[in-house]
């Protein structure tokens, strides 16, 4: 009955201000849903991406002992190959596993640097610059100079660390560290690059150096502290992980090595995933809150139009048609409000997805062990906008069942006496 839809549409213009207020209430709540969901999903995504890039890969391969003492960055529990056949062969075998796109060895170690007045504790990451650039966003954070090159005594540091040790790009820095054989070494490097990111760990603690130099200086030829495996998508981890574990078992190395999915190495991601589910329920309540305004408006409308409902019933309109008429009115408000809210929320998200929210000052007290970017970029995605739009439409329409049923249940004789 198209004319009922036409009538429902026209009815919205009877009290323009009232309709406007209802639509604004829906739009506002849907806008907040789009924004809040974009913010939370963006936060979790950023957190996950950074954890994967700078800590765990999609799958992290380390020794059991290293896992127990990881915070101390020990050098005496290295990853050095399968069945004594060397790291290169191990990397090749891992690359052959279906679903493994990249294999990234890293050699992490503790070090110190003197400012003249004090010793600053830092962390060295021996990396293959080419692979690191391909896998992480480190090149995006490079604000001056370049990545260190293999075969050279070069380092790259975060801006805050350079300020702390009072050095600039192009200058030399002497870094002190223990080798795998526990002998103290002091080596002078040229600073070739400076990074700037919201990640405290990269900004204040880590210096990058070429993997071959790290292995040579630490006396760890053919050894690394961890091997990260990268899959084409993080969703593939549950399928790839058992294949990696099978490879370790095949070589009798499952007792020594540990293959961990990215979620196994961060409690924070686990809790954030739960928070995401909880927030999804909060969004429903948020829209329900706006529905109070709509339901209240609709109940007023039913009361005002009681005689009219009686008249329509007398003309032969069935209860279900009357219910449909009021539900259509609610649905039109729901669609209009949700559309406005989804579009405006999406525009706000689009803006903040570019500029981000800078929480550097607020998170300055956080431990650098948490790989966390203090600049949070909300996720601006069509999926999020569509989710919020349909959430608004469905909940508002369902809420309108209450007044619509009241209208439909009116007896024509009583309605006409009202």
């Amino acid at each position, binding site marked *: 009955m198209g*004319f009922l839809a036409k*009538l429902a549409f026209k009815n919205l*213009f009877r009290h323009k201000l009232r309709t406007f207020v209802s639509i604004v209430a829906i739009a506002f709540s849907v806008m907040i849903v789009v924004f809040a969901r974009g913010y939370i999903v963006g936060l979790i995504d950023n957190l996950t991406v950074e954890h994967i890039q700078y800590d765990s890969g999609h799958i992290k391969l380390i020794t059991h002992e290293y896992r127990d003492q990881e915070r101390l960055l020990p050098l005496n529990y290295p990853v050095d190959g399968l069945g004594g056949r060397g790291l290169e062969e191990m990397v090749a075998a891992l690359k052959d596993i279906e679903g493994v796109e990249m294999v990234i060895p890293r050699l992490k170690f503790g070090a110190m640097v003197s400012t003249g007045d004090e010793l600053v504790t830092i962390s060295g990451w021996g990396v293959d610059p080419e692979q690191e650039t391909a896998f992480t966003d480190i090149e995006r954070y490079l604000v001056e100079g370049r990545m260190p090159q293999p075969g050279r005594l070069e380092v790259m540091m975060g801006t805050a660390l350079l300020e702390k040790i009072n050095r600039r790009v192009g200058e030399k820095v002497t870094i002190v560290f223990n080798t795998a054989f526990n002998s103290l070494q002091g080596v002078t490097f040229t600073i070739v690059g400076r990074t700037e990111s919201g990640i405290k760990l990269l900004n204040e603690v880590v210096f990058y150096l070429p993997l071959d130099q790290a292995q040579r200086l630490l006396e760890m030829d053919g050894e690394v502290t961890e091997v990260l495996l990268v899959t084409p998508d993080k969703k593939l981890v549950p399928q790839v992980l058992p294949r990696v574990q099978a490879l370790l078992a095949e070589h009798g190395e499952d007792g020594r090595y540990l293959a961990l999915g990215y979620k196994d190495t961060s409690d924070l991601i686990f809790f954030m995933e739960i928070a995401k589910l909880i927030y999804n329920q909060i969004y429903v309540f948020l829209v329900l809150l706006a529905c109070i305004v709509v339901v209240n408006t609709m109940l007023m409308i039913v009361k005002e139009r009681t*005689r009219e409902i009686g008249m329509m*019933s*007398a*003309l*032969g309109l*069935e209860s279900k048609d009357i219910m449909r008429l009021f539900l259509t009115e609610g649905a039109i408000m729901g669609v209009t409000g949700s559309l406005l809210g989804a579009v405006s929320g999406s525009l706000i998200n689009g803006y903040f997805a570019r500029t981000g929210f800078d929480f550097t000052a607020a998170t300055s007290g956080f431990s650098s062990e948490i790989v966390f970017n203090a600049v949070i970029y909300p996720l601006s995605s069509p999926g999020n906008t569509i989710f919020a739009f349909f959430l608004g439409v469905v909940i508002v329409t369902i809420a309108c069942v209450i007044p619509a049923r009241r209208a439909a249940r009116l007896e024509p004789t009583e309605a*006409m006496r009202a």
Partner: protein
Amino acid sequence: MALLEMRGLTKIYDQGKIEVPALRGIDLTVEQGEFTTIFGPSGSGKTTLLNLIGCLDRPTAGTIIFDGQELAGLEKKALAMIRRRHVGFVFQSYNLIPVLTAYENVEFAVRLVNEYEKKEIRDRVLRILEAVGLAGLEKRKPNELSGGQKQRVAIARALVKEPKLILADEPSANLDSKTSEEVLQVMLKMNQELGTTFIFSTHDPRVMEYARRLIEIRDGQVAKDQRRG
């Protein structure tokens, strides 16, 4: 041929602990094409009788046969279908839909019947609006019409689907005497031209003057039933 036959029609309203009898065994027959007025004091049962005849309510006891069909046992949906197709209503306060134009208000009733093509609907609506003297006012909304014009729209709305019966509850109550006269003339004309049966409920002596049959209701019973020339 009888359009309506009522036998022992009783309606008792259950108001908690008290039962209020509104109709006490009405026996009436209304022929096709009659122009009938039901009158009586307030609370006598006129509106209740009209509601039962109009399939808006169901009797507590008795039978009511509309165009050969017994109404008492019918479901709400079946009653709605009879109202939709065969009964037209004209109300004291017009009860037009304010957001619709005169044309759309009339169209609303014929659209419900769902039996006509778009062009036929348009032709019917325009024809009936012209017949009630509203040609040229089709696009006006109720708030742009006078009381008499509104009641003409209501009459057009009741007539457009060519029902067998039109029930008019105090149709002249809100109209001045001149307008009331005009509206009654329109209804009489439709009765004569289309053979539609009209039943009025009224206090208005002017309406009674037009009626071919006068039925007086008192205390829920037929006190007088008088036919004129």
